[in-house]
């Protein structure tokens, strides 16, 4: 045996030794996982990804729309997908929308409200407290209301008028779960407005844009937000997850709920609304844990934000999944453990709403399927009780703390009152309770405690609608000053900064001006053409006459 060969053998041996080291020695090995999908949930997901990065978990997530997420997953080109809506089987128009036989499970990751953000300026001041009823919104996005001075908008804002300005709805051009959630809501709540526009019933992931209309389409929530807040955004309104306007410090529309209050989709209002979400509890169903939101849209609680929903992760559960390995499954499990537990504390500040307990619990059941597929996945110590989720305290698991402490809406937010002067898009609910969100009392608390549909239904309606009248002294959350008695009609001046418009229409031009300047322009044009020629002719004549004189 000569030297080089001996060296190679030694190297090979040491490499083999290295390769056999991991596994038993290290409890957790991670591998990079990749996913695509919803831009609705992208902001909170990117935050979670940044958080777990220091633990050695490498997660790569690219938005691109829920439709893309579901498709990439079905083609086994990603390890997970995020989608607002489940696989549609055959989608609304007969196109196939399945996982192509790849085994999967749905896992709720975060809740949130689909917000309507807008740019509307009065005298260079941004309107920040616009209120709209669901019907007005549906009519705006079906092009029945096309101007901001429409009487319906004035009525929603209790007589406040806005300038005559065309409304430009901004919609998504790509296949989007946000569009799907929004159109589901319109289809369920306002079928006689939505269906004639769409031409059929049901939801769609592609917003139908009529050619020649004032509608603007953009790809991705980011682009929609950028367009609305951009230099050309005046008069635009679009739909994105609440986190986008919160991050951009842009106002959102307060949407009227069943109880007649105009509310903003803060984490509290979303949590309260979703107590009425009907979750599929059939564990054997492929649609286990998916949502039916009819109850949410019609939630009678005055604090509920109607267009609230959950977002889902689609995880691969097959034991022979071509893309997955033990390390990848472990990464996915631990990443979701973080997201469902500690990660939920970040949901509120980022403009989302944390998941209630029962869904976190069910989420862990779904994660257990990863271990079912691959016994090497370690799930010990990863359960609900060790969790630090803000919706429950760990002692009483059936208690939704967040819906408890959700503050009652301010009296001026009721239909026919106000409007409140408080700004929207600040992630703070508008309320008459002192100190805003944190110090909110427990009024109505018992009512919204339950997270599954029926319990919430039984109690939440009870105290709710009466609550605003109970509020003893209305205190403005920003200035801390007491304002007029709650319930009185004119609490508009809460901040003293309310912008009012008194739209006056000016004609673009006066006919006399036009005629005068028109003739002037013609004269100038004639002069421009003729004068140089005349001048030259005159000069030449003078020269010849002078030359002739000399001759």
């Amino acid at each position: 045996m000569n030297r080089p060969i001996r060296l190679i053998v030694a190297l090979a041996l040491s490499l083999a030794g290295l390769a056999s080291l991991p596994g038993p020695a290290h409890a957790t090995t991670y591998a990079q996982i990749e996913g695509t999908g919803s831009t609705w949930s992208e902001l909170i997901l990117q935050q979670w990804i940044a958080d777990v990065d220091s633990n050695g978990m490498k997660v790569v997530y690219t938005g691109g729309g829920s439709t893309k997420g579901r498709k990439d997953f079905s083609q086994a080109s990603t390890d997970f997908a995020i989608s607002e809506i489940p696989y549609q089987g055959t989608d609304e128009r007969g196109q196939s929308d399945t996982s192509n036989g790849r085994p999967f499970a749905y896992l709720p990751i975060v809740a949130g409200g689909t917000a309507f953000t807008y740019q509307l300026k009065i005298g260079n001041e941004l309107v920040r407290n616009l209120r709209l009823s669901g019907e007005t919104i549906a009519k705006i996005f079906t092009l029945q209301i096309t101007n901001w001075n429409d009487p319906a908008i004035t009525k929603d804002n209790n007589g406040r008028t806005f300038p005559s300005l065309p409304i430009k709805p901004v919609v998504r051009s790509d296949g989007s779960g946000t569009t799907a959630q929004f159109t589901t809501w319109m289809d369920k709540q306002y079928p006689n407005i939505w269906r004639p526009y769409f031409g059929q019933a049901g939801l769609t992931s592609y917003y139908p844009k009529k050619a020649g209309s004032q509608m603007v389409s953009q790809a991705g929530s980011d682009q929609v937000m950028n367009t609305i807040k951009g230099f050309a955004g005046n008069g635009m309104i679009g739909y994105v997850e609440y986190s986008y306007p919160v991050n951009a410090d842009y106002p959102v529309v307060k949407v009227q709920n069943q109880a007649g209050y105009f509310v903003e989709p803060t984490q509290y209002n979303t949590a309260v609304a979703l107590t009425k979400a009907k979750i599929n509890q059939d564990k054997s169903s492929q649609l286990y844990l998916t949502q039916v939101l009819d109850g949410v849209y019609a939630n009678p609680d005055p604090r509920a934000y109607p267009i609230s929903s959950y977002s889902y992760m689609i995880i691969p559960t097959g034991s022979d999944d071509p893309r997955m390995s033990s390390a990848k499954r472990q990464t996915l499990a631990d990443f979701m453990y973080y997201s469902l537990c500690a990660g939920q504390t970040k949901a509120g500040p980022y403009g989302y709403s944390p998941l209630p307990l029962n869904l976190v619990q069910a989420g862990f059941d779904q994660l257990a399927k990863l271990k079912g597929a691959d016994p090497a996945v370690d799930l010990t110590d990863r359960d609900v009780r060790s969790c630090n989720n803000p919706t429950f305290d760990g002692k009483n698991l059936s208690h939704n703390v967040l819906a408890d402490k959700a503050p009652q809406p301010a009296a001026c937010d009721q239909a026919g009152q106000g409007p409140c002067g408080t700004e929207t898009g600040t992630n703070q609910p508008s309320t008459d309770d002192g100190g805003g969100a944190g110090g909110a009392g427990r009024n109505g608390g018992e009512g919204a405690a339950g997270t599954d549909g029926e319990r919430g239904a039984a109690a939440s309606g009870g105290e709710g609608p009466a609550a605003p009248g109970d509020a003893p002294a209305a205190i403005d959350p920003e200035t801390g000053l007491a304002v007029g008695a709650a319930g009185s009609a004119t609490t508009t001046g809460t901040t003293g900064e309310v912008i009012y418009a008194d739209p006056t229409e000016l004609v673009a031009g006066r006919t006399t001006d036009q005629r005068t300047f028109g003739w002037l322009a013609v004269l100038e044009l004639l002069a421009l053409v003729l004068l140089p020629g005349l001048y030259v002719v005159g000069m030449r004549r003078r020269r010849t006459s002078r030359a002739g004189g000399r001759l």
Partner: protein
Amino acid sequence: MTTLPVQDATVEVEPRTISRKATGADRVFVHSIRAVGATVLVITGGVGLFLGWQAWPTLTHYGLSFFTEASWQPEADILGIRAVLTGTVMVALVAMAIAFPLALLTALYISEYAPAFLRSTLVSLVDLMAAVPSIIWGLWGYFLIMPYAAEFAVWLDRNLGWVPLFDVHNADPDAALIDAAISNYSFSMFCAGIAVAMMVLPMSCAVMRQVFSQTPPGEKEAALALGATKWGMIRAVVLPFGRGGIIGGTMLGLGRALGETIAVLLILSPSFESKWRILEIGGNTVSALIAGRFGDASKSQLSALLAAGFVLFLITLVVNTIAAMIVNRSRSGAGTDA
């Protein structure tokens, strides 16, 4: 003492056969080079074949309506490329309208007027423009240029609105508060065309500059000696000589402009209308359509997208081939004979 080898008289002396055939290492080299050259053809042909093969189901399914239908609704089984083809052409034309004079004058300045110490700097600066990724040009157009482009568009509409090209529907350029209508003038094919022009410019400029620099110095000096001014010399000698290069460079740029994707995707608000109103919001191009819809396309949608791509491929192929022919002809100095 040296002895010469004695020639064997019986052996007949035969002259070495002269052959142009490569032998030995040469032969290996020639064959490998030929193979490499052939791969280019194979790849281009393969792209065309693949696109055509993928596009076939769509073309047979929709027939002629694929070219005459403007809307793109694969879910409703209605789609066609009339709108995106118009958009592609309009964006490319806007880009060329901006890039052509800029490229021509830049090339003339660099090859004829620029002092020697500036010339190399300018050449590398123009080349640097080509090295900027298109997404950067897209962001540049979106955030930096579009606000001003929109205002310029308002001005154009106000003064030249009677020209169908500069007309904008749904907007009043004379409104007291133009702020309200400015979005109708943004996200337009005109704005996208500006960004595309910046990507086309260096390519056209480089081709033109090369052709200008090949002008025979003798003829230039002759023109000067006959008393021509510098501009007269350029008009009489450089421009006629470089005519082929000017046309060829422009068409090469046009080919690139037709296929430009990311910048257009970023700026243009997608809409499917076949229109010539370049200042108006909305529009779409073939490549932006493919990039935007590729991610979430089902199988039949993918075929439709590839069919659109196939049409674009053929158009660019034709444009580039014509450009290459013109450039090649100009290299022989044919322009000066005229």
